[in-house]
């Protein structure tokens, strides 16, 4: 089975790039290809010109790519702090103890609730808090690119708001490049610089986010519900 075909995608340093599409369009597969979890038949993934295929998946974090998977996937019987520490495993020989502590403090300022609950088991957190933890766990490795898979999935509207606000903040404060896969097209295009629309494994449309917001097809297929709401 081919989930993706002829997909070509580029992220400029320091950009937020949104990948939008319906369920089953191949968004998650695309991220798994980048982080090496799904093998590709042909094609190449490059980071700053360097072919990543020579690295096994567990070495990609040390190359500067971290992947915050769909469904959060926090380690439920590890504490919040252990979850964050595990995020440093791939880069434990590259970052100093001090750098890790500083990043951790920064993550705690982004998500103060994590600091409050750092001794608690991750499985006891609410869905929104688990998402914050999953993002923090990805950030602590100080990635060049952060892959975010459906960070707003299944969250209450107020939390969706909060998550997107923090994603924007992460981008502004640390200049991390972000590849954001989302179903919430409106919110994603609001913070992204550039967007790709995936339809059944192919890129249907791509362009700067501002253009996509005005594109008739995108409006009808992905932003339609939102327009009804505003009336």
């Amino acid at each position, binding site marked *: 089975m081919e989930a993706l075909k002829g997909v070509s995608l580029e992220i400029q340093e320091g950009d937020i790039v949104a990948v939008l599409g319906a369920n089953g369009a191949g968004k998650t597969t695309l991220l798994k290809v980048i982080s090496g979890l799904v093998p590709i038949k042909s094609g190449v993934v490059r980071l700053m010109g360097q072919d990543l295929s020579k690295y096994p998946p567990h070495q990609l974090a040390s190359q500067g790519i971290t992947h915050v998977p769909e469904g959060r996937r926090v380690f439920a*019987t*590890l504490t919040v702090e252990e979850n964050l520490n595990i995020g440093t495993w791939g880069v*434990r020989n590259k970052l100093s103890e001090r750098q890790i502590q500083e990043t951790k403090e920064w993550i705690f300022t982004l998500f103060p609730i994590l600091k409050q609950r750092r001794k608690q088991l991750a499985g006891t957190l609410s869905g929104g808090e688990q998402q914050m933890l999953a993002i923090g766990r990805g950030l602590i490795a100080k990635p060049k690119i952060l892959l975010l898979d459906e960070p707003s999935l299944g969250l209450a509207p107020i939390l969706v708001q909060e998550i997107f606000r923090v994603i924007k903040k992460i981008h502004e404060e640390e200049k991390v490049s972000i590849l954001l896969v989302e179903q919430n097209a409106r919110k994603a295009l609001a913070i992204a610089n550039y967007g790709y629309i995936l339809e059944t494994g192919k890129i249907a449309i791509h362009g700067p986010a501002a253009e996509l917001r005005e594109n008739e097809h995108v409006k009808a297929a992905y932003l339609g519900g939102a327009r009804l709401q505003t009336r």
Partner: protein
Amino acid sequence: MQLLLEQLTNGLTIGSFYALVAMGYSMVYGVMKLINFAHGDFFTLGSYLGYAILVIGSGWVTRTFGLWGGIVVAILGAMLGLAIGGLLVERVAYRPVYKAGRLPLVVSALGASIFISNGIMAVWGPRFQAYPQTSIPSGTFRLFGEVYMTDIKLVTLIVSLTLMALIYYVVEKTLFGAAVRATALDRETATLMGINFRSIILFVFSVGPALGALAGVFAGLNYSRIIFTMGWGYGLKAFTATIMGGIGNIPGAMIGGILLGLLESLFEGFVSGAWKNVFVFLILIIILIVRPTGLIGEKVAEKV
């Protein structure tokens, strides 16, 4: 009172064997979701390796290193041998069938178990062997009152409990331990964190069998008689201990092992020696019915 204390020390001793073997079961199960049926035979093989080291050149090791020095050599030799043996079994019996699913893996584990126990029989023969009396410290000391304890039993307890504490510390308190637990919970996400699954496998398949080997040598030193089939009984009871503590849970395996040893010894001393195995497996059945996740069980239910 005297009987109670004696049975308590006996129970602690045998319980520490169960606990050491149970930890190996639990580690492998946690990471690979495989019940490693060959694990009881690692215990036997460890015991035979210790025996082989002590009888080589009719007690050369004991003559050279002294009574306790010889025991240290036998223990370290057996543990090292089984760390290598465990990795070898993983390589030839498990790795080729990982992708085939869990059932072929279990069948392969049973095969490995039969292979090892028959291999031991082929090398050392089908009859009981005895650890040489000249290599076992025979001293005893008075615990208090009329309760005596052999030196070797005390050493067994101290070494076993220390090692358990060490493993507990590594698994529960260090970043490496967190990586092992994370891998057990969710292998794919652990990979995304940069954890190499192979190095975790390396850890569980060397440390687990080495702990089994330690228990095996201590069993030989305490009870002297060893036979190639003994891993079956110890393995099953250690497995019961694993279930008691909650499979995949390493502190649970330690507590389960000690508890099972104590219960078994108390039952043997005060009720009936002949029925003790019936009692032990009755406990297993009751736990499986009442609390299948074990006495310690899962720490939290996962929120979705």
